[in-house]
């Protein structure tokens, strides 16, 4: 099967990090929380640096030099951490965007998170730009003049900002305005946009795994000690800075201002911004049908409310006069159509209504639980061989039909999290010797929590649990993407061999028990 080259690249990077960090610490799975962590580093070091910093034009550069050289190990290292963490956050944010793009997680219901990420990016970049002003060195001068030229190119702003930067015109008032923006205005704006960015997610995590946080901080500290951040010569508005050691993470458009008219630079920047903003609507992918609640089969247990990864389910007082206190409601605008709610509903039990249509409290119109039961029965009936293995797999991991053989059949699900644990038990009771569940790679579920809930439900840690009577030796869970076919096939072969051994051992035990019984009868 063809996997697009962008996704293949992403999966290769992901695999490499899985190899070196494992899935729990894989930084690719924690780019958002890693960015949050870097913000904390920036905030703490920034507050620390604010104490010795002199906020006047005449004193700013000298105070930064004092911090860098005279207080090298107390404040200088904090300056370097502040700077390198700020640069690192651009890397993590861009990788975060690339990951979401490469794995197709920016269209459909995800448009909101994608679009609200854009003001975050703008705020981060402009926050970095104002930060560079405060050093008031030659680079600050270069950035200040460039920024002013860009601002002056906006037709509605008649005041000439650029004239603030001709010799003798720069005032402390203007400098303090920039300090206010950097220290308060932009951080508050960033906090607001970050809140907006994660607003449609439930169970939001903002801290990376401790090991990853420690490793990142350690790496940044070593870099800060080995290559401390330095300033240029003090700004001199009577001279043009000749050579600038530019921070390309934040200041990449400034060299363009020297080559292009300011208007063209704006067109480029705004054009890229708009293109990225409109990307969710540039594909033909559509969300599936949204989850539907059937109050006749819902007792308001709230398990679907707890499991929904996108806060699309709310609980309210019963409206149908039934004896239960509560009922759940799906907000179709927030629903990702993942089906995790159907997997969490205790009514999604295939042992119910065996001869009639199976109805459940919350279901997916495109693949109701009743259909999953029928698909399970059909797949088991079509298998031949000594051991019969049924593989349930999600639409976003490996296509399970690629694993099919005479003795192995697959049932595709929207997400592995939509699999009711009782359906696994049902399959084992109805002829399958083994059940394998494949989802996305661990910690990288397309619908955030699908494979995590499967793992917890099967381990008995999350309701609805896989009951104790289900033989765990006959169940395997494996995360894998489209490019992991060989790895999953290997695991499937091992599973097949294990099942065969188990079956032979059971047959042998049964035979010996029978023989023992016959000889007992004979001796009587």
């Amino acid at each position: 099967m063809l996997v697009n080259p962008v996704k293949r690249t992403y999966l290769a990077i992901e695999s490499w990090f899985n190899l070196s960090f494992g899935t729990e610490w894989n930084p690719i799975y924690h780019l958002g929380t890693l960015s949050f962590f870097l913000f904390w580093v920036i905030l703490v070091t920034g507050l620390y640096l604010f104490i010795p910093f002199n906020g006047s034009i005449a004193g700013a550069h000298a105070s930064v030099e004092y911090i860098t050289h005279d207080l090298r190990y107390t404040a200088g290292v904090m300056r370097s951490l502040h700077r390198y963490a700020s640069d690192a956050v651009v890397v993590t944010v861009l990788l975060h965007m690339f990951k979401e793009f490469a794995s197709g997680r920016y269209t459909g219901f995800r448009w909101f998170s994608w679009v609200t990420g854009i003001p975050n990016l703008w705020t981060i970049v402009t926050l970095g730009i104002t930060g560079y002003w405060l050093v008031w060195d030659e680079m600050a001068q270069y950035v200040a003049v460039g920024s002013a030229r860009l601002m002056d190119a906006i037709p509605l702003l008649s005041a000439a900002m650029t004239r603030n930067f001709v010799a003798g015109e720069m005032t402390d008032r203007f400098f303090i305005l920039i300090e206010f923006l950097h220290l308060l205005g932009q951080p508050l704006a960033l906090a607001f946009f970050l809140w907006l960015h994660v607003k449609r997610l439930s169970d939001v995590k903002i801290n990376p795994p401790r090991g990853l946080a420690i490793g990142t901080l350690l790496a940044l500290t070593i870099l800060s000690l080995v290559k401390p951040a330095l300033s240029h010569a003090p700004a001199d508005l009577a001279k043009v800075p000749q050579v600038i050691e530019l921070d390309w993470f934040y200041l990449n458009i400034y060299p363009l201002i020297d080559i292009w008219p300011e208007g063209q630079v704006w067109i480029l920047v705004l054009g890229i911004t708009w293109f990225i903003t409109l990307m969710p609507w540039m594909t033909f992918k559509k969300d599936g049908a949204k989850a539907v609640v059937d109050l006749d089969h819902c007792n308001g247990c709230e398990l679907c409310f707890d499991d929904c990864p996108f806060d699309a389910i709310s609980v309210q007082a019963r409206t149908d006069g039934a004896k239960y206190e509560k009922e759940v409601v799906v907000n179709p605008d927030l629903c990702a159509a993942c089906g995790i709610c159907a997997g969490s509903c205790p009514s999604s039990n295939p042992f119910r209504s065996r001869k009639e249509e199976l109805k459940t409290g919350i279901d997916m119109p495109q693949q109701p639980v009743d259909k999953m039961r029928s698909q399970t029965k059909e797949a088991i009936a079509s298998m031949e061989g000594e051991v019969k293995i049924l593989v349930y797999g999600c639409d976003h991991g490996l296509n399970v039909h690629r694993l099919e053989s005479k003795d192995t059949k697959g049932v595709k699900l929207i997400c592995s999290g939509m699999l009711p644990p009782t359906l696994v038990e049902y399959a084992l009771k109805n002829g399958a010797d083994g059940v394998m569940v494949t989802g996305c790679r661990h910690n990288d579920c397309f619908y955030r929590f699908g494979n995590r809930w499967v793992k917890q439900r099967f381990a008995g840690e999350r309701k609805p649990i896989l009951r104790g009577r289900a033989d765990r030796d006959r169940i395997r869970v494996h995360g894998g993407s489209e490019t992991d076919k060989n790895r999953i096939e290997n695991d499937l072969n091992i599973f097949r061999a294990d099942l065969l051994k188990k079956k032979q051992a059971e047959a042998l035990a049964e035979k010996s028990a029978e023989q023992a019984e016959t000889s007992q009868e004979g001796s009587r």
Partner: protein
Amino acid sequence: MSCWSKGVGNKPLRYLLQAFNYTIFMTVVWYFATSPSVRVIGEDEAMITVAFAHAGETREACRVLSQEELMKLPPNMRKLDDCPRERSPIVIEATLDGKTIYSKTYLPPGIFNDGSVNLYYNSKVPVGKHVLEIKMDDSVRKQGFNHQLTQDIELKPAQILLIEFEPLKGFIVR
């Protein structure tokens, strides 16, 4: 039951790989934090900057109102002169050793075209001795350039030669 990846089985090797990844990450951060450097101006170049705000003269001269016209106005609005608000565009030209380096016409901003023009212009020029000439026409009621300055200048590397304008003093070179 499950096969969740823990990374490379050998723990020291895993930590070594992690250290390698952190090193790559930090190298990228460090490199692009300062490199490649940008040369803003050549070693043998200076910059001429023109920067000032100036309102052109009104397009039409003020007219003294007749007694009859004044009486028609409310008492609090009886001004002797009626001055149209619209101002003249500003035409500016600068030459260096006879070669034009700057020539532009600025229209007055504002809904009634009555605002001050904010000029900002800069040009990289070779260092050394030059003859600078700058002239401005800020009135449609007068023919040709009504403000002018010609001056010998000597520019040092990276120097910014600032040209300003004050209505009473004319062009000022700093």
